């Protein structure tokens, strides 16, 4: 499994805003354990596949992280440093498309903070999305913040998988 929690970037306004989508699929293995059918205590509970909140958060971290990385031409190692706020108000299940919108709040030489919203589209049934989460994050450019601590020269944050995603989304990449 590749650690990619967004499927496509659909809008990018450099240094300002990025929108991506994630289609939730029942082919994702982890959904079969989250939550599996259970018969604990003699009570039979049917399976209930819902996307874990931690992975909804990761989707926002990747969306906002690429937005910040792009602003710095992918030269900085952008790492998620702090979750300033995360409120998830509804479960999302297979067949649903999530739309992540990340907006730059602050951006300077040391790091950045972003404000984000997540909307859910019930594919094929309704075009009206439901707001399911608000997630505000902070990113650190680790080479600028770790008091001289050494990190590998190459940018291990933006790997081949990210390059593929950017190319597929028709965003020029030169890193």
């Amino acid at each position, binding site marked *: 499994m590749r650690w990619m929690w967004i499927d496509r970037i659909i809008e990018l306004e450099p240094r300002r805003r990025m929108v991506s989508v994630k289609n939730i699929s029942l082919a994702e293995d982890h959904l079969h354990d989250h939550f599996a059918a259970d018969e604990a205590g003699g009570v039979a509970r049917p399976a209930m596949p819902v996307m874990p909140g931690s992975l909804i958060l990761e989707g926002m971290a990747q969306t906002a992280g690429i937005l910040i990385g792009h602003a710095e031409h992918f030269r900085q190692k952008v790492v998620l*440093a*702090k979750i300033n706020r995360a409120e998830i108000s509804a479960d999302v299940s297979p067949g649903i498309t999530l739309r992540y919108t990340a907006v730059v709040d602050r951006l300077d030489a040391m790091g950045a903070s972003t404000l984000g919203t997540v909307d859910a589209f019930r594919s094929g049934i309704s075009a009206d999305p439901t707001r399911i989460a608000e997630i505000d994050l*902070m990113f650190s450019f680790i080479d*600028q*913040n770790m008091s001289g601590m050494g990190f590998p020269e190459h940018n291990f944050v933006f790997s081949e998988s990210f390059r593929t995603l950017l190319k597929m989304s028709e965003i020029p990449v030169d890193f």
Partner: protein
Amino acid sequence: MTRDEIYSKVREILADTLSVDEDDIQPTSTLKGDLGAESIDYLDISFQLEKNFGFKIGQNELFPQGVAQDPKYVKEGKVTPEGITALVERLPHFDFTKFRQDPQLSRIHEIFTVDAIVNFVQAKVAAKG
């Protein structure tokens, strides 16, 4: 903007960024020791100050990094008098009185107090006019 107004806003910002109770924040509270700040929180605090007070904070202006790692200024784990003079010059918003008495490098974080931030904001607001 009066110092009291600045102090009250700074307290609000610190309570929010560090998830502590406003009542636990005193002018003499140290960010790391008393309020549990981690390194990344310093960046968050800078962002929040910029946003709330409407000024720009340069890199290393409020919370300098690596300033005490200069071998010229540190000997056997202690900051030299020359080092303290350099620090005072670069960081006029910090109070070094207590630190001077026992300038162990490991205690340098104790100068990062709520008061130091209020001093910093006050100077920035005054400079802005």
